[in-house]
């Protein structure tokens, strides 16, 4: 049979490393089994893959690492259902299916020269980390870079070692907060929006990237708008239950847009226009 492009056909990837992030979250480092395929695999921050755990099906996950670091790619996953729990039981050398990259990506080329503000909440930091790494690897193309991150508790912070590095960098302003403190925590306590007053944000000339739980995104957008951010400079991602990842199965539509194909990245201006 002739070989034809098949939008549902996954490539086999191997887990090359697993890192514990929090009690329920791990970062998986993947590499395609076929080296040639791996070398040709290109993605942009904000895109996602459909990850197969054979026997359990597929689920969508965003890239957590930058395409400038091509040797492997990271996906950070919280165990919430059957597929993610099975994945958490897997280890180095185990194989999964990967279909992608899918969806659109965070604006990158269009924001060169601008200040960049990242606002991450909990498990929403991983997709931003893909862009953060990408921008830090091309640091001279951007103005000030500010990263604000919040999690429920200090235990729930992901990439703990890396956060310390960001804190120490002179070319990045990084501020972290937790909703509830724990013994040994000496940092900020409170919700993410309280960090705005500490960060000296200039709405003009800044593009904001937000990723986190829906309720956080909603409040953060309100704050940014009232600070004077233009709606097209507020960028976030939408989440929906997805099956095919290619705009066919209709699980993820909002209005006539498919989160999997037209998104998952939308500006606030675009989100407001989504009608159903």
């Amino acid at each position, binding site marked *: 049979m002739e070989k034809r492009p098949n939008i549902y056909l996954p490539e086999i990837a191997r887990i090359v490393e697993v890192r514990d992030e929090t009690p329920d979250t791990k970062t998986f480092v993947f590499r395609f089994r076929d080296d040639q395929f791996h070398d040709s695999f290109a993605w942009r921050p904000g895109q996602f893959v459909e990850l197969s755990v054979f026997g359990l099906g597929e689920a969508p996950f965003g890239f957590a690492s930058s395409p400038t670091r091509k040797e492997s790619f990271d996906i950070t996953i919280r165990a919430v259902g059957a597929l993610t729990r099975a994945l958490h039981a897997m280890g180095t050398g185990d194989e999964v299916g990967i279909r992608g990259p899918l969806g659109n990506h965070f604006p990158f080329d269009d924001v060169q020269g601008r200040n960049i503000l990242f606002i991450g909440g909990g498990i929403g930091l991983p997709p931003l980390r893909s862009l953060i790494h990408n921008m830090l690897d091309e640091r001279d193309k951007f103005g000030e870079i500010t990263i604000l991150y919040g999690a429920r508790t200090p235990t729930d912070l992901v990439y703990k070692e890396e956060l310390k590095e960001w804190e120490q960098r002179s070319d990045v302003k990084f501020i972290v907060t937790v909703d509830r403190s724990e013994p040994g925590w000496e940092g900020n306590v409170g919700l993410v929006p309280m960090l705005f007053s500490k960060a000296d944000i200039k709405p003009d000339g800044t593009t904001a990237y937000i990723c986190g739980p829906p309720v956080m995104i909603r409040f953060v957008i309100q704050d940014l708008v009232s600070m004077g951010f233009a709606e097209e400079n507020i960028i976030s991602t939408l989440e929906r*239950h997805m*099956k095919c990842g290619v705009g*066919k*199965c209709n699980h993820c539509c909002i209005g*006539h847009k498919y989160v999997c194909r037209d998104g998952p990245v939308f500006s606030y201006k675009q989100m407001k226009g989504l009608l*159903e």
Partner: protein
Amino acid sequence: MSRALKLQKSRWPEWVAALQRTAAVIAPVRLHGEDVAFERITSPSEITLDFDNTADPPKRFLFPQVEPLLRYRRNGGYAVEPVYDEEPRVFFAIRCCDVSAVRFFDFTLGAQDLPDSYYTARRAGTALIALACHEPCQSCFCVCADTGPFLPPGGGYDIQLTDLGGEHYLAEVDTDKGEALVAAAAELFAPASDDDLAQRRALEEASEKRFPSEPRLYFAASSRKVSLDTAEAELWQRMARWCVACGGCTHICPTCYCFNVTDAQRNGDGLRSRRWDSCQYAGLTREASGHNPRPEQSDRVKRRVFHKISYQYVARDGMQGCVGCGRCTRICPGLRLGLPEVGEAIRRAEWK
């Protein structure tokens, strides 16, 4: 391309037999009782041409209710291979509304910017012999959807048959595939005359006049309200009280194509399949966290209508997602939530 031929009525079984030599023929068959359904026939004698429309649309032959996508095997590492169905097939005596629905699938599943290779593989080997309608069937409103009772050239058929009333069918051949179907039994066909073509036009006009004034769907008005989100919210809630979320309207719809994907496996070997899903089910949008962006049945009823008739989807998919077959009206347990009834309620802003 379009040329008109004549086929002697008494000889269509010979033509079908000739078609069967190279393809599976799928045609209307009378089942126990009264229902007529598309089935794969073994002999032309099984076919009935005395039917208004089939109980269910022929979509399951192009987009099966359960369709294998991938087979995977674990032998050390995983090996994955696609499962294609490329058997050549001919739909014989498919009604114009259902031809239009196949055309809709060509725009959506088959969209060339991102083709679904399972659909396109099956579709590539499929030919459509349409049978124009002289009589409207119960609940149909194809005149409102502009998908019948006859189709113009380029309407999606390979051949369109019209019963000319006497001894002959008119066969309008519109594609290369259609030419090949004629070539399978060329001796059965003769050129049509200008009188035959005039007769066909007269039959089309007469047929259109026979459509009842109800149910009638004024798509433009209801589509405008749905597209602009100006339909009264209260309407959706009232409709939702009638809806038992059985999904019948979506499963019976010749243009609905929502699907879910599941794996089944034994000893590491497995099959990934897709199966029909429905926007009327709460589970369509429920996320792993338990959050559901369409929590109420009224959200889901609204969703269905939006996907069918909003301008946004018409622009996206190339045509409206309703072909006016009326099956949703017939299948609804309350007989209330078919698209003509819902569309009319939106237009009038009342649901009693």
